[in-house]
């Protein structure tokens, strides 16, 4: 007996490869996860988002304003979507439909020509500081230099001053631009996604793997009883997590809580249920706990990367944004950031809750269909 025998080592290596090849799903994941990572990191993620949707409130629509709007568009950071009145613009900002609102006062051109340095107001949805900071510094540069060509000849004296206009920037909802305010509430969604999907996927797969499922099915239990029975305890677990994170957010990170916590807890219910439904669906497909774990990751990774948690949602190309809209986390992030930071009420919450509810229904339908009452 030698201390180390390469034939014995080879025997184990070969056996591992055979088992790896048999487990098609695991094999697929080994290839699939790097590919997905590559696609997401490589193409979809952009920490310098451009073409941010902007609404304008124009008290003046003269050539100087047009110059500014053109300048903003050409910078690549702003995409001027609509011209609204003041209250509609504010609502668009709260709903998250636009990232910026630019307000030009009446008599802008006259004040400018008179050298009065008129105010222009740029309101930004700063819940995610990373999404807006580059655009804001571009705007500051524009305010300094965009009229250089217009203000030539006899008007050159106006351009010579440090700034022809007074640019006021309101970073709304997170005025100090504290990143934690954005991350900590978002973490609640991330943690819930991670644990809810994985726990249910594992809990049901374990039942099958250990052979106890056969027993459950032989008893007069109905599938819906088994499914609900497995889900209910984890809803409770989910709420404990919600409570912990909310407490930490308030006590440790001093995250503002502008809106109704009750509304948040109600919205969290739908979100938790949607994730549990995904877990159930995975468990009905997975044949062992490892597969269930891998599928959970397969779901978790794009959720994390495409939801706007790690990288600004609007920084992603359009196809990735559409993809991101599918995931419950994307909408829950908007809900929780809306409620905590913007003080959003029922209406904006319901708008985002709709897609989560739809996702829940689809996932549950697939899960119950796949969960077989009989073993075949």
């Amino acid at each position: 007996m030698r201390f180390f025998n390469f034939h014995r080592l080879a025997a184990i290596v070969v056996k591992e490869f055979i088992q790896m090849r048999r487990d098609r799903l695991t094999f697929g994941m080994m290839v699939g996860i790097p590919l997905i990572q590559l696609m997401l990191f490589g193409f979809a993620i952009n920490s310098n988002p451009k073409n941010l949707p902007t609404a304008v409130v124009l008290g003046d629509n003269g050539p100087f304003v047009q110059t500014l709007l053109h300048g903003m568009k050409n910078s690549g950071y702003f995409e001027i979507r609509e011209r609204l009145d003041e209250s509609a613009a504010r609502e668009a900002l709260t709903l998250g439909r636009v990232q910026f609102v630019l307000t030009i006062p009446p008599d802008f051109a006259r004040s400018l020509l008179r050298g009065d340095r008129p105010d222009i107001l740029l309101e930004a949805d700063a819940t995610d500081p990373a999404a807006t900071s580059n655009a804001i510094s571009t705007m500051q540069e524009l305010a300094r230099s965009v009229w250089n060509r217009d203000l030539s000849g006899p008007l050159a004296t106006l351009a010579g001053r440090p700034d022809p206009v007074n640019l006021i920037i309101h970073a709304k909802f997170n005025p100090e631009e504290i990143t934690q305010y954005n991350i900590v509430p978002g973490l609640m969604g991330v943690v819930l996604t991670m644990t809810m999907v994985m726990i249910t996927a594992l809990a049901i797969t374990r039942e099958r793997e250990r052979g106890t499922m056969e027993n459950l099915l032989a008893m007069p239990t109905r599938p819906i009883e088994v499914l609900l029975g497995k889900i209910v305890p984890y809803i409770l677990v989910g709420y404990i997590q919600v409570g912990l994170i909310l407490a930490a957010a308030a006590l440790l990170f001093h995250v503002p809580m502008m809106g109704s916590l009750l509304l948040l807890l109600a919205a969290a219910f739908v979100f938790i249920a949607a994730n549990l439904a995904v877990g159930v669906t995975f468990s009905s497909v997975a044949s062992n706990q490892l597969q269930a774990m891998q599928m959970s990751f397969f779901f978790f990774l794009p959720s994390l990367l495409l939801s706007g948690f790690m990288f600004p949602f609007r920084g992603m190309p359009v196809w990735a944004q559409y993809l991101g809209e599918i995931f419950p986390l994307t909408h829950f992030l908007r809900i929780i950031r809306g409620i905590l930071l913007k003080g959003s009420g029922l209406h904006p919450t319901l708008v985002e809750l709709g897609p989560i509810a739809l996702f829940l229904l689809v996932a549950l339908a697939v899960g119950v269909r796949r969960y077989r009452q009989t073993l075949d």
Partner: protein
Amino acid sequence: MNGNPAIDVRGVTKSFDGKVVVDHVALRVEPGEIYGFLGPNGSGKTTFIRMLCGLLKADGGEGTCLGFDFLTGSREIKSQVGYMTQRFSFYEDLTVQENLDFVARVYDLPDRRTTLERVLREHGLAGRRHQLAGGLSGGWKQRLALAACMLHSPKLLLLDEPTAGVDPKARRDFWESIHKLAAEGLTVLITTHYMDEAERCHRIGYLSYGRLLTTGTVNEVIAASGLHTWAASGPDLQGIVSRLTGKPGVEQLVPFGTTLHISGIDPIKLGEAIDPERKPGTDWQKIPSSLEDVFIHLMDSSRDNFP
């Protein structure tokens, strides 16, 4: 029990991916009867049992189980059947009592506490009620499984190799309980590989490649096989084996410790074949074929019929 058969099914068929696993099996079991299901691994015993208790849908067949249509009444059947799976399928991270309590709740038993206590006592589990099921030895796990199957007082017990991996003493205790329960009117359908267990059944059936080849009491099955057996004991049994193998009339040679069983259907040819081996020092006796001889014979011949 009003004399109607507990199980009365005909033409039960099931295939997986085009492979026929149970092939037109007909079975009739009377109330209070212990029916033993025998057959090699993969012969369709487990599949048949799963169809009876509604875990699998049969592809074809008709009949009743406990008076309910076995194709459409699986809901009613499930509530009156105790099914003990081949593999221990209770929760290893729950204690004995917690497992039983879980089952009692699932069946929604009216008087849960007292039923639980009675079953714990009857199955001798009271002393281990707080032990984790995962820490029990094979024999105790089997007791727990039987107790769990009996909680809801079923009329029919389906036992799928209940004694695999259980020591002889525990097996004997187990069979004592089964006979006691059957005497009280419970019908039992049990699969096994052990011959001594088959002999404890009122009637047995032999399943091979999905077909029920023979059925009846042990003696009927042996008689129906038409098998004749000689037992040889002596110094050179291995030599006898090599010389008799393949001779006309000799169908099987099975060593049993110090004796050798030589069996065949045709007694005359068999006699002619062994005549040359009747030497001094070797003792020859004509014996009644044992159940094991018959089963090995059935196994060999069915392999020829269904390649």
